[in-house]
């Protein structure tokens, strides 16, 4: 049966793609950020997952408002990284694992999650930047696992509640663990932490709230479901709602986890960046 090794959450700021391309790892602005990924690289090298479930939020590439799903799961043979409007060169496609995708979708729809299945899906920086961070040279890193993208809506309110996000992860765990092949799986939760791009409050960052989330997500995630979505916007900023992805990831890791590494740094671009590696017990 498939086994979940652990989960890794990270911010997915577009500027990171640029920094990676230009090898700015030792630049004074970037060093405190990239240093957060050293232990993650060793963990990945040691554990070599076969499949990566990448929980991210699309930013207006894969989905538009004409049909905006709350939860979408990729079920394609590969996922193309396309131009998001800035003319940046796109990475090569990421190979998928449609058999496992369908297994998960079957399990989750049976468990009353109203999934949008995506047999074709263009993936943006929310999906790609974490792949580049964890598997340098992605998708051409020799250890690159096959990928399954899962996207949650943070573009159009109403967005899912924090409770629904955590429950989504728990149902996802059941779907992954019942897959009959012996595969090692890692789950990513990408986005956040506090930031806001629009309005007179642009540039808003909330260190205290981010620390509260980081303190509780590993061992007390249910506490965080008390946060309403409006509070989340207020305290994490309009785009800090991406913390929902961290909750989805957390749900997939089971009750007990060990924190392997954590990093928090202000600012990268407009964002308070955070990373967390949780290993399943």
């Amino acid at each position, binding site marked *: 049966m498939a086994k979940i090794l652990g989960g890794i959450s990270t911010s997915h700021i577009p*500027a990171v793609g640029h920094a990676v391309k230009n090898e700015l790892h030792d630049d004074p602005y970037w060093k405190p950020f990239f240093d957060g990924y050293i232990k993650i690289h060793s963990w990945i090298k040691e554990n070599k997952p076969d499949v990566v479930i990448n929980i991210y939020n699309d*930013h*207006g*590439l894969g989905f*538009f*408002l*004409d049909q905006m799903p709350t939860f979408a799961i990729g079920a394609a043979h590969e996922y193309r990284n*396309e*131009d*998001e*409007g*800035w*003319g940046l060169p796109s990475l090569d496609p990421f190979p998928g694992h449609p058999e496992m995708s369908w297994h998960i979708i079957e399990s989750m729809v049976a468990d009353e999650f109203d999934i949008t299945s995506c047999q074709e899906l263009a993936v943006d920086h929310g999906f790609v930047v974490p792949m580049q961070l964890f598997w340098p040279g992605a998708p051409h890193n020799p250890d690159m696992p096959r990928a399954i993208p899962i996207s949650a809506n943070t*573009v*159009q*309110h*109403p967005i899912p*509640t924090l409770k629904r996000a955590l429950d989504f992860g728990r149902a996802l765990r059941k779907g992954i663990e019942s897959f009959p092949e012996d595969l090692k799986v890692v789950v990513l939760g990408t986005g956040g932490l506090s930031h*806001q*791009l*629009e*309005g*007179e*409050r*642009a*540039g*808003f*960052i909330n*260190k205290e709230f981010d620390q509260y989330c980081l303190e509780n997500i590993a061992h007390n995630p249910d506490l965080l479901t008390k946060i*309403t*979505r*409006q*509070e989340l*916007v*207020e305290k994490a900023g*309009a*785009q800090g709602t991406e913390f929902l992805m961290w909750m989805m990831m957390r749900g997939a890791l089971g009750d007990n986890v060990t924190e392997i590494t954590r990093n928090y*740094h*202000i*600012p990268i*671009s*407009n964002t*308070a960046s955070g990373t967390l590696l949780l290993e399943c017990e």
Partner: protein
Amino acid sequence: MDQPGFDYHIDIPGTTLFDGKQAMKGYALNKMCYAFNKEVNRDAFAADEEAFMESYGLNEAHKQAIRDRDILAMIAAGGNIYYLAKLTGIFKLSVQDVGGMQTGMTTEEFKQYLLDQA
């Protein structure tokens, strides 16, 4: 449940939640910006802004906000920042430029404001 009545959202100063009300106002504007994922549409816009806006059925509030490069007005007219970012990319504005424009700071001031929150 955190939305007791017909008004679902609390007031957060300086923040316009992109909910159904905003979406109803901004659909044409956002649809045009979504089209900017493709280079051919970015080029067509750059070649003739007015004609391109007209072809997407933008209303006068949308158009004037774009003519004025006024981000806050675009948001007030129903624009969603994720789609607008593709438009501001055409205008060669960075995320920090856009932050400064909305907060009345220069880009350098806005960058310092971010650093000061560390």
